[in-house]
């Protein structure tokens, strides 16, 4: 395993080699190992391992020309080649109208071992057994078929900038997705677990297996749901996707390219006054926890929605200059579509306030209410309007008083801004969600929203 010292040596070499050919250079060298065990039909399908060691280089040249490149490295010669390639590319680029500099303060950051799992190798040895235990847990709880994936990783990285920033970071992470089925295709349930210390999360992983099995059992007999307007209770999994998108899109670059509904809404009440949401790279256990961003600006909690009011966006140095505010330490190489990354603001962990209602109380409803436990395939008609639809999958229930009826085959076709305004209650079961449909780790609880539109196939 490559150590932090080697990574820093590579990053140093990159900055040194860029020299005075550039106005600005940022180099981040990262080494990582990831493991995954995928399973379906109660069997492990494949076990995987990925080894990565690469450097990311951002440069800005005279005249506001910017460029970014990344490649794997095995030696300082590779580092030199990476820098030369990015500089040569950037020399031919036109001026970027968006670039307004990077962090100028020379700060040194030491690696934090908080949230780092020193026992991840041991965990890896036990992981196949644990996967089988999760499968068994789901079956014990009522499923007949179980599928899923357990992924865990270790990552070390070092950052060096031409302005004197020096930063080290180390992290571990895991995420587990268990999906349990009956023989029928559409009687199913899901359980998720994610966090930063896999060796301390075995109980949580087994609980995810149990939850998937229990939901699959409760989904037995699901009948066609009836389209219409209902109150909606979203599990944290669904809420993270549908409601989490709002704070995750408090990003100037998303506003500029037209994929955020928040462009002209700063200062507006967009949710009830008891709802708050932040971008928080400092939250313990957050999968995107960090102490500094790619420019070397200190990471900080950014209150995006405070007491229901949209307060601010996340920023890097360039967008902060555009908005005449300070950077929020949110700079990260990010792909805008396609595969090439640029230096842009990017969310870290979205953190909603926890609710003060028990989950049980949330389900005491006096109007027909639909409880959705998972969803996927969210697509937008118009990002700026917030018009979208998404498909509930796995267990879904129509709640009428004390009666719960499993239902299926409905689609949520609504508006995310309107739903955000119509949040009616939040439970006290806040948890972190990260999976296929939620790529920004989001801490959120079970949420009830009034008057949501459900549609279904017409034939």
């Amino acid at each position, binding site marked *: 395993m490559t150590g932090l010292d080697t990574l820093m040596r590579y990053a140093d070499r990159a900055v040194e080699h860029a020299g005075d050919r550039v106005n600005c250079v940022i180099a981040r060298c990262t080494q990582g190992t990831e493991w995954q065990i995928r399973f379906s039909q109660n069997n492990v399908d494949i076990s995987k391992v990925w080894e990565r060691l690469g450097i990311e280089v951002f440069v800005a040249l005279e005249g506001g020309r910017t460029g970014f490149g990344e490649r794997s490295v095995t030696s300082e010669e590779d580092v030199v080649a990476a820098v030369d390639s990015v500089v040569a590319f950037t020399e031919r680029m036109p001026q970027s109208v968006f670039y307004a500099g990077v962090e100028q303060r020379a700060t040194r950051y030491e690696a934090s071992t908080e949230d780092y799992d020193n026992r991840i190798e041991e965990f890896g040895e036990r992981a196949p057994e644990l996967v089988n235990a999760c499968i068994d847990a789901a079956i014990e709880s009522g499923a007949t078929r179980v599928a899923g994936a357990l992924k865990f990783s270790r990552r070390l990285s070092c950052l060096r900038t031409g302005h004197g920033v020096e930063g080290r970071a180390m992290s571990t992470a895991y995420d587990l997705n268990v999906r349990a089925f009956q023989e029928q295709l559409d009687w199913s349930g899901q359980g998720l677990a994610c966090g930063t210390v896999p060796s301390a999360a075995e109980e949580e992983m087994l609980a995810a297996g149990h939850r998937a099995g229990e939901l699959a059992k409760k989904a037995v007999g699901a009948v066609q749901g009836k389209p219409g307007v209902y109150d909606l209770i979203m599990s944290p999994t669904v809420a993270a996707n549908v409601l989490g998108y709002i704070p995750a899109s408090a990003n100037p670059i998303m506003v500029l390219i037209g994929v955020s509904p928040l462009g002209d809404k700063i200062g507006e009440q967009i949710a009830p006054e008891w709802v708050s949401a932040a971008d928080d790279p400092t939250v313990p256990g957050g999968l995107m926890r960090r102490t500094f961003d790619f420019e070397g600006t200190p990471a900080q909690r950014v209150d995006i929605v405070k007491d229901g009011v949209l307060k601010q966006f996340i920023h890097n140095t360039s967008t902060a200059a555009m908005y005449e505010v300070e950077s929020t330490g949110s700079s990260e190489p990010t792909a*805008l579509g396609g595969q090439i990354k640029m230096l842009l603001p990017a969310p870290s962990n979205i953190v909603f306030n926890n609710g003060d209602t028990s989950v049980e109380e949330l389900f005491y409803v006096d109007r027909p209410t639909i409880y959705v436990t998972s969803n996927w395939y969210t697509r937008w008609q118009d990002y700026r309007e917030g018009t979208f639809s998404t498909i509930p999958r796995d267990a879904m229930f129509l709640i009428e008083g004390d009666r719960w009826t499993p239902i299926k085959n409905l689609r949520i076709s609504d508006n995310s801004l309107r739903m955000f305004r119509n949040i009616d209650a939040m439970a006290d079961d806040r948890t972190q969600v990260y999976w296929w449909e939620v790529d920004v780790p989001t801490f959120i609880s079970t949420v009830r929203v009034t008057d949501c539109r459900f549609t279904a196939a017409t034939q």
Partner: protein
Amino acid sequence: MEHGKELAESCMQYALELGADYADARFVTTTIEGHVYRNGAPVSGGRTPSAGIGMRVLVEGSMGFASIDRLDRGLARSAVETAVKMARTTRRREPVDMGGPVSNRASWSMDVRDSLRGVDIDTIAGLAGEMNRQMEGLPSYTLILSPVVCDKYLVTSEGTEVTGHTEQLQTYVLLTGHGKAGSEQRFMDLTTAGGWERVKDTGLVERVADEVQRFKRVLEVAVAPKELVQQPVDMVVGPEVAGIIAHENVGHPSEGDRIMGREGAQAGESFWRDLKIGEARVGSQQVTVCEDPTIPNTGGFYLYDDEGVRARRRFLIKEGVANEPLLNREFGARFGTGSNGAARAAGFDREPIIRMSNTFFAAGDHTFEELFEGISLGVYMRSFSEWNIDDRRYQSKYTGCEAYLIRDGALTDTLVKRPILESTSVGLLSAVDAVSKDEVLDFAATCGKGDPMQPVPVYAGGGHVRIRGIRLGGVG
């Protein structure tokens, strides 16, 4: 390239020495360049070269996969050891069977006259300038141009050695506009497959100009006639919409790994699981949907798949009957038919899984004009915006972007705002009663599947398709 090939071969050999019953290694080099513009102004750009090896080992019926992102012999040996160890400790309850051995030696390449490798930044900036000019006047437009060149080499313990070469100019446009009819957004993937010559051959700039003019008209004059939702109506869908239907409602459910449940926790399973393939009717007699990676200059082009199996055309639905699933070697063995060459990996760091390539409605016998005859009230949906489908691939929704009113047997120039086609796969395909003679395969898309996600380029299309007696999910 030679060092990478030699290292891939040694990985494969070393896996056998460690006791693997089967091993393969893919050495893949990719160069991606990207240029991003917003409202005509450059945002930034970058270049990302990569070279790595992905290897699979089968040990006592269990599969292991490892990938390395640098050509380091020590790391490669260590990765092989890890893959073999992980596979061995898995002890899969039902062993993976790859079917009969495959030993193909071949070299294939996409047709390329003017390689994207040699295209300089000024030339790309010139094209971007031309394309951006077509979009001027809209409040917001984003353009991404990204040349991608990929070479790959596959070696297996059964004697397969295959090299392949592809080039694509990934081209993405996001339009945002406001007009008297409200506001709209349209995302277009205009990726061309081949060298720089495809920019001219496909009329890329003219295509953007045409789409922008159409989009602007939608913004100004689209209306929402309520009569369209008060009764069942007929529809004609253009090649773009036919393409997304072929991809989502036919291609995905035909994937053998979904049918057998391997994607259960990710992309989902398939309603084809409960069908008797070869006998079950899932559409009308007029519906034949094909899958074909061998069509030159398409996003899904290849001649040998990432398991070394020779590619061929597959008839997923033949005259309305579920005919043939997409299969790789593992699922070819499980279906008892062998692979039909559908294994693709998005990069060296991904395992090959069952994927689509180019999916389309086979041509029918109607002219475009004949499709409208006999329709008293209906909608012609030329393009779509929002869409989704459930994970069994049974209930889909397509919302029209550019759509026209059909009345009294003729296509009118009245634009219909956001008509919604929300139906089941079988309900939709069973309502098809005609397909046009023309076959258009130029709807480019990036298909996502797997975990970790594997985005792969595909094309989709077909002729114009007529659908009878549909109750719309809404307009406006």
